[in-house]
């Protein structure tokens, strides 16, 4: 796999300016690498470790702790279905069953065509939209199964 582009490497070096200690730049640096590659393969973790002069074990430990770092390849779009209380009370389980059926995968999996990674999510802080989900950076809700179908169609084309 190709290394990170030079611009991304420069961006990671520059991140350190905002902080008194360089390790503070680790989370933002991992996001830069993930933006470039779509996920964080072992080689990317090593590059970030080298750029920030941190042990690889530390970088790996941090990357594996947080939900938004992908240590496996992900789909083109990330679907986060909230199943926490407000959404549960308003029909999230119906949406989960519907999504499982339409996508043909279980939560935590990626569709065979690589279009979607589907995850159940904890509260997304948009309870006025319950039941709701996020696709990439956009929130949608309150949703019916039919509206979910329209969403999937729209994003699959992108």
């Amino acid at each position, binding site marked *: 796999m190709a290394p990170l582009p030079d611009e991304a490497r420069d961006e990671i070096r520059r991140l350190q300016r905002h902080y008194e200690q360089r390790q503070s730049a680790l989370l933002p640096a991992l996001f830069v690498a993930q933006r470039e590659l779509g996920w964080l393969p072992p080689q990317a973790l090593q590059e970030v470790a080298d750029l920030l002069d941190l042990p690889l074990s530390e970088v790996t430990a941090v990357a594996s702790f947080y939900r938004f770092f992908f240590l496996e390849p992900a789909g083109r779009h990330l679907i986060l279905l909230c199943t*926490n209380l407000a959404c549960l009370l308003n029909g999230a389980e119906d949406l989960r069953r519907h999504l499982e059926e339409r996508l043909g995968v279980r939560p935590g999996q990626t569709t065979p065509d690589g279009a979607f990674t589907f995850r159940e999510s904890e*509260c997304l802080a948009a309870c006025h939209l*319950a039941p709701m989900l996020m696709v990439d950076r956009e929130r949608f809700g309150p949703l019916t199964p039919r509206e979910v179908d329209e969403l999937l169609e729209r994003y699959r084309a992108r």
Partner: protein
Amino acid sequence: MPAESILLRFMEGEGTADLEAYLRVEGYAAARHALTALTPEEVIEIVDRSGLRGKGGAGFPTARKWKFVPKDAPLKYVVVNGDEAEPCTFKDHMLLERAPHLLLEGIIIAAYAVGAHKAYVYVRREGYLARERLRQAVAAAYARGFLGRKIFGTGMDLEVVVHSGAGAYIAGEETALLESLEGRRAMPRPRPPFPAVFGLYGRPTVVNNVETLSHLPAVIRLGPEGYRALGPPALFSVSGHVRTPGVYELPLGTPMRQVIAAAGGLRPGRRFKAAFPGGSSSALLTAEHLDVPMDYEPLRAVGSMLGSASLIVMDDTTCIVRVVARAVAFYKEESCGKCTPCREGTYWLSQIFDRILEGRGRAEDLELLTHISRGMSNGACFCLLGESVPPGLEASLRHFRHEYEYHIRTGRCDVEAALAAAVAPGA
């Protein structure tokens, strides 16, 4: 919305995310006044007399927290907790998206009060729009001289950095947040020392919640008496089985019944069953508590808490066992794994709930739930995450024990049975 709304008026519609819009409603006038006409001690005194308490959940008096910061430290920080991942809390998110300048103005006031020249705003990863709006607001404020060097032409310098979380509820705990900001796993630190003395990079650090800081411009503008006369005001995140879930600004102490009414009341034809008054960490309340004032002490007196003022309303269609099971699953998912009672306790509880819901519950399970829950209480856990589980669980066993028993005895849910019977005649 009450006429005197001090926060919600900045959030209505598209809000005042734009600097020009914010300036039209006297934006930054309070910060300017604080920096040019008041000493830091006077600001702290005003905030103290206003009675402002932390809105992130703990309710600790804001000014008292500030007073712990050593005056003579060469480097100090303000860290804004915008992680807000307590289930059904969404007021901070809305503030960041619709009124980011209100927060920035609050940050200026807080930084001036404690003598900090650098602030970090930690926003949870999922808050893409919130972070984007905040970054735009920061850039606009720099351009106008409200941030950066010699702000408002005074000797005060202040730099603000927006930092993204990466998905971890525990990062909302203030010491775990500092660990995360330092680029490590978000695991809580032992306290003491408290962050006010030993915080970010070991420097004195004030960690305040987004809503807390957003109250400061009003506190300065209205003065302590004027501010207190409004309730004092608070933002309530209301969700669940209400007709218009959303964020409502009401005086602290508004009875639960009225908070529900503000959110449009229950859905037509339904009866109130239970509510979490302060997010899933708070003990469940029932219909007998509908007139309890939603304030710190009255809710504590009935065995619950205000927390982040996130009212989760449940009507008679709700299976309480399923709701508590989901809350427990949340804490299992979010446990950082540092301490045994939380790491193991949440996992064990979840397994028991799973088998009860799958119809394989055992007679001894209720005793077991109580036993595990007690093992996670009274300081057994390293931080409040594990300790958040017992209140809701134990209250549900107290008020809705029959529902658990029905599940275990029959393998089914009595709510579904009751609802099926209720609709049967007309069906």
